[in-house]
C-alpha cells in the first residue's frame, strides 16, 4: 500500500479504471472494430477460412439482392413497433394500478416482476407448450370459451406465429415498462395532485395535466430501452419458431445468427452486424428526438 502513495490522483484513477476498460475493450470495443475489418473480407467455410479482401461486396448484396434480409428487417420492425406499443400501454396500466394502495401490494409487485426475471429461453419453451397445436392450453381455453371454432397451429402459420411471438414478448417484458413507470409515478410530488383537486380537476384532468407530462422523461427512456431490446430479439424467436414458418418470424438477429453459423460465413456476418449496428444508431437518434423539450425531474 505504501508504494501507491507515489501515484497522483489521476494516475490512481486510471489504475482503477483499467480492469473495466480491459474487459470492455476485449469483449465490446475489439469486436466492433474487428467487424468493420471483417465486413470487407471474404472469410467463410467456402474460402477455407482464409481472409480475402472483397471491398463493399457484402454491403452491396445486403442492400440490393438479399431478399431474406429484407424480410427479416420487415419482421423486426413489425415486431418492435407492435410489441413495444402493447407493452407501453399495458405497462402504464399496470403501473397506475400498482401505484394505488391495496392489501397484498408487495405480492402483486413481485408477481409482476417475475416474468421479467425468468430466463427468456426457458419461458419461450413454456410458451411453445402453451401454443401446442393439439395439446396446448391456449387452444383449449379459447375453444371452451367459444372464441375459437377449431384448434389452430399458433406457431405453424403466417401471420399467427408472429402475433404469438409478440404476445409472449408482451407477457415477458411488460413488467419492465411497468417498473420504470412505477418509479416515475413515485417521483411525482403528491401535493401537485392535491392542488389540482382543489382547482377542480377530475381524475382524467389530473392524469393528462400532471401524470403524463411529468412521466414523459421516464416514458422516453422506457421507450428507448425496450425498442432496442425488441429490435435485438433473439432468444424468444429462436426457441419459439427458429424464424419459421417460412421465415415469417425471422428477425435480424436470428437471420444474422443462422446465416453466419450455417456456413460460418464470418465476412457476411460481420457486414450484417455493421448494418444492424447502423440501424440501432438510427433508432437511438429518432427516439432521443422526443426528448427535446423534456422537463427535468429533480
Amino acid at each position, binding site marked *: 500500500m505504501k508504494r501507491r502513495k507515489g501515484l497522483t490522483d489521476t494516475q490512481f484513477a*486510471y489504475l482503477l479504471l483499467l480492469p473495466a476498460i480491459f474487459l470492455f475493450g476485449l469483449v465490446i470495443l475489439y469486436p466492433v472494430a474487428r467487424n468493420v475489418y471483417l465486413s470487407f473480407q471474404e472469410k467463410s467455410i467456402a474460402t477455407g477460412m482464409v481472409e480475402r479482401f472483397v471491398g463493399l461486396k457484402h454491403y452491396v448484396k445486403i442492400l440490393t439482392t438479399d431478399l431474406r434480409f429484407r424480410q427479416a428487417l420487415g419482421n423486426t420492425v413489425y415486431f418492435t413497433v407492435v410489441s413495444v406499443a402493447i407493452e407501453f400501454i399495458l405497462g402504464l396500466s399496470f403501473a397506475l394500478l400498482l401505484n394505488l394502495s391495496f392489501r397484498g401490494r408487495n405480492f402483486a409487485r413481485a408477481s409482476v416482476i417475475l416474468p421479467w426475471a425468468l*430466463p427468456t*429461453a426457458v419461458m419461450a419453451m413454456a410458451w411453445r407448450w402453451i401454443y401446442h397445436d393439439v395439446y396446448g392450453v391456449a387452444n383449449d381455453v379459447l375453444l*371452451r370459451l367459444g372464441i375459437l371454432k377449431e384448434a389452430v397451429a399458433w406457431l405453424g402459420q403466417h401471420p399467427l406465429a408472429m402475433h404469438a411471438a409478440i404476445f409472449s414478448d408482451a407477457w415477458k417484458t411488460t413488467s419492465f415498462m411497468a417498473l420504470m413507470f412505477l*418509479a416515475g409515478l413515485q417521483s411525482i410530488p403528491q401535493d401537485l395532485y392535491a392542488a389540482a383537486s382543489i382547482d377542480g380537476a377530475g381524475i382524467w384532468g389530473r392524469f393528462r395535466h400532471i401524470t403524463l407530462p411529468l412521466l414523459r422523461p421516464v416514458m422516453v427512456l422506457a421507450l428507448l430501452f425496450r425498442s432496442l431490446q425488441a429490435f435485438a430479439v433473439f432468444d424468444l424467436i429462436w426457441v419459439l419458431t427458429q424464424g419459421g414458418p417460412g421465415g415469417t418470424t425471422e428477425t435480424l438477429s436470428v437471420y444474422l445468427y443462422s446465416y453466419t453459423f450455417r456456413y460460418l460465413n464470418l465476412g457476411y456476418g460481420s457486414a450484417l452486424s455493421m448494418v444492424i449496428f447502423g440501424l440501432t444508431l438510427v433508432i437511438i437518434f429518432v427516439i432521443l428526438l422526443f426528448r427535446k423539450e423534456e422537463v427535468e425531474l429533480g
Partner: protein
Amino acid sequence: MRQKRLVSFLVALGVGIVVFFSLAPFLWQIITSVKPANEIFSRPVRYIPSHIDLSAYVKIFSRHPFARQIANSIVISCAGTFLCLAASSLASYALSRLRIRGGRGFLFFLLFLSLFPPVVLIVPLYEMVSAFGLMNNWLALIVPYAALNVPFATWVLTSFFRQIPEALEDAARVDGLSRLGILLRIILPLSAPALATTAILVFIFCWNEFLFALTFMTRATSRTVPVGIAMLSGASQYEIPWDQISAATVLTTLPLVVFVVLFQRRIVEGLTAGAVKG
C-alpha cells in the same frame, strides 16, 4: 359509500387480472410437471392432475446432464457477477470521486455502447473463443458476461457512490488510511446494499443469457440451464419431452422466484436507479 366499494372492487379485479396474467404460464408449467404421463397428452386438456407424479423430475436428472448444467450455470453466473462487480466498483470509485477529465463522457460512452444488440459481437467473439481454444470452457462465458454488464453496473454504482458523504473519506485520510484502504475499508462496506442490488441484477442477467451460451457451449455437458432446456427437444419434433421440460423449468425458475420475492424492492431500485435518478 357505495361508490367507494365499487372502486375497491374494481382495483381488486384489476390486480387479480394482472397477477393472473403474470403467473399463469408459470403455474401451467408446474401443473404439467406433476401430471402423470398419460394426462399430459389428453384432449380436452386436464387442468387438475388425478394424482401427483414426480417421475418427470427423476427423468430430467437421470436421462440428461441436467445436474451438470445447473452446476455450470451456478459457477459461470457467480464468477461473472464477481468479476463484473470487482471491475465496476473500482471504475465507479474512480468516476465518482477522483476527478478525471472526460469521466462523465466515459460513463455516457459505456451506456451508449451497451445499447447495441449483443448479436453484433458474436462473429468476432466466436473467432476469439475458437482461436484461444476456449470452446466449451467456462471462461468463454464468464469474461463476456462480466464485460457485458460492466456498463450497467458502473452506471448504477457510480450514482450510489456519489451519495456517500465525502467527509467520511476525509476523516479516514486524517486517520492515516491510504487511498486503496479508504476504498476497501470505507467505501465498499458502506455501499454493501448498492453492491448487493447490482449483484442481484447482474446475476439474473448471467443466469438468463442465451445467445453466447448457445454459441460457445457445443457439448451437452458444458451447456448452461437456459440452453440445456431449450435443447431438450427429443429425437424428432414429435417427441419433445414436455413433462421433463416443465420439471426443468420449475426447478430452475423456483430459486429465481424466491430471489425475486426476497429482493423485490432491491430489484426495482436497481433497475430504475440509473434511469430515473441519472
